[in-house]
């Protein structure tokens, strides 16, 4: 584990990913100091091009776009990280249980996993979100997590099956440890890097799904997130009026945060898989 961390620190992709995540975390924490105005206050001339007062211009209802993008970092980052974590926990629960117990339990869980794997996520997310009448951040997180856990579950299951018959596991079983303890306290710590890689993959999926959902107006359109900034830009035809900073900036931020998660995912894979390691 220490070796993995050391190798990760020397990996350029990991360093890049970490740096971006750090910068966005700082922006999210310092949003009240970085944003020049209240992101929801409609107090300026509408549809202004970028200027010294409004770096990215103003929205059609006279809000400062730069302040919106800064504040939006908070919501988007939190949704990405929290959803990534919840999705990973769901994947672990299903994947590890299936892989450890095998037999009928595995058959049932694997079938459910495979079904969720092939049912396309975004259309499912869209119809669930369309039915939910309470709009907010929590439903968005819930919907994305419930549709996104299957891939991780499959990965964890196969990893569990390779560890299942190791001596230390047999020893723990013989000593009479509770199965849950064997799974989560004995075996799980041996796949920390896999869990971390999966977490970043899930966070990437969450950030992109959230953006898509909010862009369609299925999130809370009154909240300030990168996705809703894009939604309002599209709804007010920012494109037609040549207000490109309005839609270019939040999208670029989504892509950058997504890339950071993808880089971390890829770097962990590169560091822990000896075959992918650079020679």
């Amino acid at each position, binding site marked *: 584990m220490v070796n993995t961390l050391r190798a990760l620190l020397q990996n350029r992709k990991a360093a890049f990913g970490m740096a971006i995540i750090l910068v966005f975390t700082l922006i999210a924490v310092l949003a009240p100091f970085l944003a020049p105005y209240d992101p929801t206050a409609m107090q300026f001339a509408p549809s202004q091009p970028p200027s010294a007062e409004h770096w990215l211009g103003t929205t059609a209802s006279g809000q400062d776009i730069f302040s919106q993008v800064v504040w939006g970092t908070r919501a988007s980052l939190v949704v990405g990280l929290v959803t990534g974590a919840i999705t990973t926990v769901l994947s672990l629960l299903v994947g590890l249980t299936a892989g450890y117990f095998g037999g009928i339990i595995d058959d049932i869980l694997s079938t459910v996993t495979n079904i969720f794997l092939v049912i396309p996520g975004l259309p499912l997310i*869209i119809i669930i979100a369309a039915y939910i009448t309470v709009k907010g951040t929590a439903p968005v997180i819930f919907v994305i997590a419930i549709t996104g856990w299957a891939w991780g579950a499959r990965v964890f299951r196969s990893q569990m099956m390779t560890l299942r018959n190791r001596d230390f596991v047999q020893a723990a079983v013989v000593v009479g440890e509770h199965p849950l303890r064997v799974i989560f306290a004995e075996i799980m710590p041996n796949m920390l890097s896999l869990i971390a890689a999966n977490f970043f993959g899930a966070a990437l999926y969450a950030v992109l799904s959230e953006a898509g959902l909010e862009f369609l107006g299925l999130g809370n359109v009154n909240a300030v997130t990168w996705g809703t900034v894009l939604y309002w830009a599209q709804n007010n035809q920012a494109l037609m009026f040549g207000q490109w900073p309005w839609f270019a900036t939040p*999208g670029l931020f989504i892509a950058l945060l997504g890339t950071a998660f993808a880089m971390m995912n890829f770097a962990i894979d590169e560091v822990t898989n000896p075959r992918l390691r650079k020679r």
Partner: protein
Amino acid sequence: MKYVLRRVLFLLVTAWAALTINFILPRLMPGNPAEVMIAKFQGRLTPQAIHALEIAFGINVHQSLWAQYVDYFRRILTGDFGVSVSYFPATVSQVLGQAIPWTVGLVGVTTVIAFAVGTLLGIGSAWKRNTLAGDAVVPVALFLNSIPYFWLGLLVLYLFGFVLGWFPISNAYDTSTQLSGLALAASILYHAVLPAVTIIISAAGGWLLTMRNNMVSVLSEDYIAFAHAKGLPPRQVEYRYAARNAILPSFTGFAMAIGFVIGGALLTEIIFSYPGVGYLLYQAVQSLDYPLMQAIFLFITVAVLVANFVMDLLYVFLDPRVRTGGE
């Protein structure tokens, strides 16, 4: 044969699960969401249409859940998805039928192109690993893979549609004049360029990364070193020895990736006002047209399931172990 049978069974079980999810979802939600929709369209729909909607969503019906479920299956299997409330009096099947060819054409073709381009680039990038060009591809692909499709679509549309004016900004063909034959085909292709480029650029990155990782793994196998030692031409080692084995996980990973790609492609249609299923879904969401939404969800799911099934069958030709049943 046993393998094909298992895949058919899986296809059926998954289709059943998707249909059941579709049935249960509106009934699970606190306060049936369809009531809002029906109230909204009251006065614009005939009483018969409203009654049909109530049956479809389980409002005011004095039937057991099981009877509703059986009834639901009977209707779906006969292709009866009810009436579309936003396109009333058109039925959902009519509305959806007009959108499907556009999506199958655009999304189907671009998905295949993206898979081919991404996989070929992945092979090349792994073969030339540890060179500048081979390794520089990776961060670029990671970035492209993390771009929201619809955002790339917006940028492409703004630049090439509005600023430069090279390509049309909406629709699937020129609707201002009557076109037929070759002129119509040319117009359709011309209108498809921007959405197609958007989808290919965003989707190819993921396939590239998958293929590259598989390929790098395979290239460290002993039999590759042996092939080199035998003095085989590098091309032959690259494609016939390495890529042929490395592509297998790309096929099995197809299941997850295809859903993601199609989801993104649907959002791309919205940006370009392309009259396909994605754009229709957007309109259905905007106008709370639940019957239409349900039918679109089912159509996309079935399309993805069939695509997966085809990939599974192709796998039989690629991997002889599956054919003989051995490991």
